[in-house]
């Protein structure tokens, strides 16, 4: 397995270079270094000299990907792409365009993101699996029918509606929790209660319906009939046999998102005023802060690859037939 993991990690390098290249291309198709300078310097009283000075200070006065004026390897290395990308591979994110240390920002913002995403993930998983098992258990009854109807209805509603509706009902009308904001330590609980609840509820529809399908597929298999035939209680059949065997497809979708929890939620963080990495990314895109955007995309790619490797490893844990070679 070790060799497999090493191989996957090595495969990740060209993927990351590719992602970096695509991010770079997409960003600079829309924004030129001049645009970035003007966005950072403001719209008033900006002189061409100030723009040139800003670019020179940050290395944006170089050619984008090929420096014909340079000698030797400098043609490739004396470029914005090389200068800005190569340090990412040693996780040196440098400074944002407004000269804030990106690593320090990520470190500070990672915890609020996790504080929101982790409970949503864990509670959501537990609720969705339980609800899906319940529907599977009562398959072809009115409970199953109305459960599926509820799931379809819930997955048809926009997340934004859940957020605004939740804020309106829980905070504005019932005054149960603050409508937005964040505090560190235990004080975070009162700010996170509503976004976590909304995060869980908004995910129930799609996930439960999918898990139900997986469980029903498993429940039609011979080993389940055998388990019932030998007199096992239905709860034992479901939790000990069906759940375990249905875990492989669930893991495919679930483990891969675990590392991405660090990146936070773009929408929830904005609406609930949670200073996490999701809102950091949104702010950076709006401010045309390429340094932050490329760092966040890079981290996202690394975490996604890590998630895929973890998924593969998790297969071996839940299914002894699987070997990673």
């Amino acid at each position, binding site marked *: 397995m070790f060799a497999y993991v090493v191989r996957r990690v090595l495969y990740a390098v060209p993927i990351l270079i590719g992602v970096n290249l695509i991010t770079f291309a997409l960003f600079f198709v*829309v*924004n*030129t270094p*001049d*645009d970035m300078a*003007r*966005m950072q*310097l*403001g*719209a*008033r*009283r*900006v*002189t*061409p*000299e*100030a723009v040139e*000075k800003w670019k020179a*200070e940050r290395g944006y006065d170089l050619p984008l990907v090929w420096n014909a004026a340079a000698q030797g390897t400098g043609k490739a290395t004396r470029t914005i792409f090389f200068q800005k990308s190569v340090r990412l591979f040693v996780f040196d994110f440098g*400074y944002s365009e*407004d*000269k*804030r*240390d990106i690593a*320090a920002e990520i470190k*500070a*913002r990672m915890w609020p993101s996790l504080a929101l995403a982790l409970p949503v993930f864990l509670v959501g998983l537990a609720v969705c699996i339980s609800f899906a098992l*319940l529907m599977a*258990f009562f398959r072809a*009854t009115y*409970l199953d029918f109305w459960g599926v109807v509820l799931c379809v209805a819930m997955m048809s509603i926009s997340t934004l509606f859940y957020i*605004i509706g939740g*804020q309106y009902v829980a*905070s*504005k*009308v*019932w*005054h*149960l*929790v*603050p*409508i*937005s*904001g*964040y*505090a560190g330590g235990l*004080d975070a609980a*009162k700010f996170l209660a509503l976004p976590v609840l909304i995060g869980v509820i908004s995910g129930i529809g799609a996930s439960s319906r999918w898990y139900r399908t997986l469980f029903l597929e498993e429940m039609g298999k011979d080993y389940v009939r055998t388990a019932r035939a030998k007199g096992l*209680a*239905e*709860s034992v059949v479901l939790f000990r046999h069906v759940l375990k065997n249905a875990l492989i497809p669930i893991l495919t979708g679930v483990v891969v998102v675990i590392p991405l929890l660090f990146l936070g939620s773009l929408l929830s963080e*904005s*609406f*609930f*005023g949670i*200073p996490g990495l999701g*809102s*950091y990314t949104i*702010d950076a895109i709006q401010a*045309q802060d390429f340094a932050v955007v490329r760092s966040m995309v890079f981290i996202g790619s690394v975490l996604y690859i890590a998630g895929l490797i973890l998924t593969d490893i998790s297969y071996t844990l839940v299914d002894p037939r699987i070997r990673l070679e």
Partner: protein
Amino acid sequence: MRVLPLLLVLLAGCGEVWNNPYPAADRGGNILYSVFADRPKHLDPAQSYTSDEAIFTRQVYEPPLQYHYLKRPYELIPLTAAEVPRPRLVEKGGSTYSIYEIRIKPGIRYQPHPAFVSENQNLREKAIERLNSPYDLPLGTRELTADDYVYQIKRLAHPQLHTPIFGLMSEYIVGLKEYAERLKDAVRPGQWLDLREHALEGVTRVDAHTYRVMLKGRYPQFAYWLAMPFFAPMPWEAEKFFHQPGMAEKNFTLDWWPVGTGPFMLSQNDPNARMVLERNPNFRGEAYPSAGEAGDAARGLLADAGKTMPFVDKAVYTREKEAIPLWNKFLQGYYDLSGISSDNFDQAVRISLEGDAALTPEMETRGIRLDTTIAPTIYYLGANWLDPVVGGSMGGAAAERARKLRQALAIAVDWEEYLSIFANGRGVPSYSPLAPGIFGFREGAEAINPVTHEWKDGKARRRPLEAARKLLAEAGYPEGRDAGTGQPLVLYLDTTSRGPGDKAVIDWWRKQFAKLSVQFEPRQTDWNRFQEKLRKGSTQLFIVGWSADYPDPENFMFLLHGPQSRAKNQGENASNYLNPEFDALFERMRNMPNSRERQQVIDRMIEIFRHDAPWIGGFHPKNFALFHSWLGNAKVNEISGNGLKYLRVAPAGRDAARREWNQPVIWPTLLLLLVLVLSAVPAFLGYRRRERMSARPAP
């Protein structure tokens, strides 16, 4: 399951609210609560320029002058200066120079700061790494001196700083441009550049409390700049302190930790969530104004006359990026003041048939007060002077045709309707570049643009469309078609409005042009491309805005000054308007004191503007501010920005209101839980039945 309802009931019985976003320790505190939307980029006075940053910088930094808090029109008064300086004109080598000698009051001290403790100037990197805030270090202070003002003006030319006004100031401050060149050679990477070792010819220290600034020629507007943080003092110790290795990695920079003499100091800097200003214990105290404009006394704005400011101990600014949470928290009493977004306008304000704004009963019940003011800002539909259809640079008959076309459009585009539909009536149409309240602006019948409006029954009324059609025909486009070719006239509006929500605005614009049978094509683009088109002069029609730096007609009229052309010189004249007579009048007007003669010059400039119509109308936005009953001395001041020190809060009233407005409603939660439990009962019964069921029915 039985514990939760019990807990809810017990908590409800405590009488305290649950949705209070602030720590319990702050309850009853003499604290002002407000918001900020965008994280400030710069808090260094040499770089900070936006209103988001001014919320903080203006409370910390003290330039020599400030604006009177209550009086209108805006009036410059001393802040740290002993008096408002009057320029002295001198002739030297055949040139005229203005000399401003600024005397600052003695005895002013800086806020407590580690930069003033000499041991803190040589910290080890490990020690810096352990700090959570610069204020973890021992703190010191010292007296403000004229050298600090001199040092800051030198910083405007620092090669590692981006001062937005460097270009402008280098045209006036003697030697500043050359000074910047010298500093470029002096700066060493990673090393602190001690500006005290480099003299600046035009800025000199006279004595410990006096400094002198020498300007080329006359520049009366310089006094206004002396009221902005660009000219606030900067102690060299602060710059040196933050330049130590390891500081930047901790985000400890002068750009994030301002050091000033003002009534407040920034004690918490978390631009992602919260910024906190606390009372500067070394602040000398300043008396609340004892005079204002008419009506201020009746509104209670003079009740604190002569009392020592500031009144609040702390101001907590929370970051709110979305309008809905912000508005609801204001209604719940968690913010002391608020603006009004379009979404909430109808909930907060009702407009009478006469057009007067008043609060809705819901707001009045809560004791909320409304303050409206017309901002020193203008948004206008500009015509690119370089464009062959709507411009004026081609001269001759073609220019005359284009002029009449612009005038026809200026009549047809109904800005009153625009304001009514898209801004809830929050604004007034502009008849000239000058916003109300700026010297040169005329009131009543004299204010209107006779090209587009007429004065009837004591009101300005837009001229009928027939007048526009007549002008259009004279321009060579009868019925919206080129008289020569018969081709329809197509006009292009460059705009950044391109979302689904902007369709209504685009449709409205189409309707305005359709009134004259002119075809309208929006060229929707992103902000970057839009700005690029303006810089290249490749737009035809466009909408942009300008907020005044200072309340002087020069700061509006320069938007039409030929040498300020955006396409030619990257200036602020976005329409690239060029009229030699206008430019000559501008040169005269900019150096004149406010007087009847200046008014006459301005009148003539406005007359030329109306005749040439480089802008096809526009509007001045009207800002609506809401204040809770417990917030005292609140009055909108669009220019000064240092209003925090004047505000007073009544914490007891605020706490009572919060309790009354935010009592938790728990029965729906209990009901929901009950429904959930009950809905599980059939499932449980079904499970039990199924578990007990035998494989084969009993015989």
